[in-house]
């Protein structure tokens, strides 16, 4: 990566700065280019949903923001500060581990397969990072955890291990666990895809509640078009590592402009 970094600002200023900005971001695995010069802004408090065919790079976008993947070009900014890079002598250089750890505090993520820690109970899952990363006392962390488990409707299951919870319950614990870190940005990667149909509603209801009652910035990947349309401020349709089309739910679902968007929407509605 021998990119000229001078075209990227050291930080984003101004009251209208986005919470998240992907600027010219490229990601490839070997010869396979997964994301091609992606530009994407998410405003503070905005709920943006990413849809698109399998393999189009949706998960990769979230994983890069969570620093689970490194990027090959461009810069990602979170709350005005570069995430993938840091300033050194007036230029941007790739972020070191320390910078990434500091920036990661802004972001939380919920995974398709929950990834709960199986040897910890629901409340222990929620307390682990607040105690050992944020430095809360166990009492504070427990209170926070209990409050969040109540928010997701699991006050009865506080002391259960994940193996004794249903998929929907596990995913709700995972959401509480992520919220316990008080992130500014919350990422959802197909959080309902691994669930049985009858429990999907438990999880979408929690997300609905978060959108209406909290001023979180959220980036969500989902295949549930109805839910996306109902809840999002904006929808982005990915195709082969690029944004094919984006707009409000009504624009994108009601009046899609691009041929590929129409094809994709037709294919998913037929499948339903």
């Amino acid at each position: 990566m021998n990119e000229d970094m001078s075209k990227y600002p050291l930080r984003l200023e101004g009251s209208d700065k986005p919470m998240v900005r992907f600027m010219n971001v490229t990601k490839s695995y070997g010869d396979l280019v997964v994301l091609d010069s992606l530009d994407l802004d998410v405003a503070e408090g905005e709920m943006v949903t990413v849809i698109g065919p399998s393999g189009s790079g949706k998960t990769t976008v979230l994983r890069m923001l969570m620093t689970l993947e490194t990027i090959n070009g461009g810069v990602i900014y979170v709350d005005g500060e570069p995430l993938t890079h840091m300033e050194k002598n007036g230029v941007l250089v790739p972020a070191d581990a320390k910078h990434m750890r500091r920036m990661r505090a802004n972001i939380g993520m919920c995974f398709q397969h929950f990834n709960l820690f199986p040897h910890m109970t629901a409340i222990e899952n929620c307390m682990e990072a607040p105690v050992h990363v944020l430095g809360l006392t166990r009492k504070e962390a427990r209170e926070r955890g209990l409050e969040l488990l109540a928010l997701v409707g699991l006050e009865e299951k506080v002391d259960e291990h994940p193996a004794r919870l249903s998929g929907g319950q596990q995913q709700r614990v995972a959401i509480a666990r992520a919220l316990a870190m008080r992130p500014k940005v919350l990422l959802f990667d197909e959080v309902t895809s691994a669930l049985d149909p009858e429990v999907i509603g438990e999880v979408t209801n929690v997300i609905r509640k978060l959108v209406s009652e909290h001023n979180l910035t959220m980036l969500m990947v989902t295949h549930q078009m109805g839910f996306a349309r109902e809840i999002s401020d904006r929808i982005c349709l990915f195709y082969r590592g690029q944004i094919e089309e984006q707009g409000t739910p009504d624009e994108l679902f009601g009046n899609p402009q691009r041929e590929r968007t129409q094809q994709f929407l037709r294919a998913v509605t037929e499948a339903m």
Partner: protein
Amino acid sequence: MFDWRWDFVWEILPRLIWATGNTLIAALLGYGIAMVLGLVFALAQRTPSRILTMVVRELVEFIRSTPLVLQIFFIFYVGPQFGIRLSPWVSGMAAIGLHYAAYLSEVYRGGIEAVPRGQWEAATALNLSTARTYFRVIIPQALPTALAGMGNYLVGIFKDTPMLSVIGVAELMHTANAIGSESYRFLEPFTLVGVIFLAISLPTAWLIRVFERRVRRSLGMN
């Protein structure tokens, strides 16, 4: 010919039991060293440094494919050549600890690699430190997988302690040999050694299996 003498058995049994104590101490000490050093070997192979990974990998392979008895001789005799004298116990423990560290590092590695990738990712997403991720998230989950192997090697190290007799550590085999050369009777001492080994290793192997099941259950896994 075949004349088993019980009076001789009772005469030598106290000495053999005392030596069994030494054998057990040697096995436990060696195992303690192996557990710690094995973790070092395993973690060294997970650092980002390619060179370190390769060197440790090759070292582990080397230790695993050469005879322990030769390693014991090597460590015991090479020191004095360069002016370092190690006692039989120290060189014996070093050799056996190093040998089993190589095996245990493979057990640990297998256990760690069996932990799903999502667990690492969740730990990153929660911003847990590397140390915290290992000790609180990964190792507890690697443990149930690793326990079976760890138990086998605990019994294994116990059964390999007779090799320490070659440099004069007064464990069971060494004592049986001494009794044999004093009395010219080998039948009873060698047979008793075999019986003592069976009497310890069979129940231990069984206990380890029980323990393994309990740990799995207490960690909430099955």
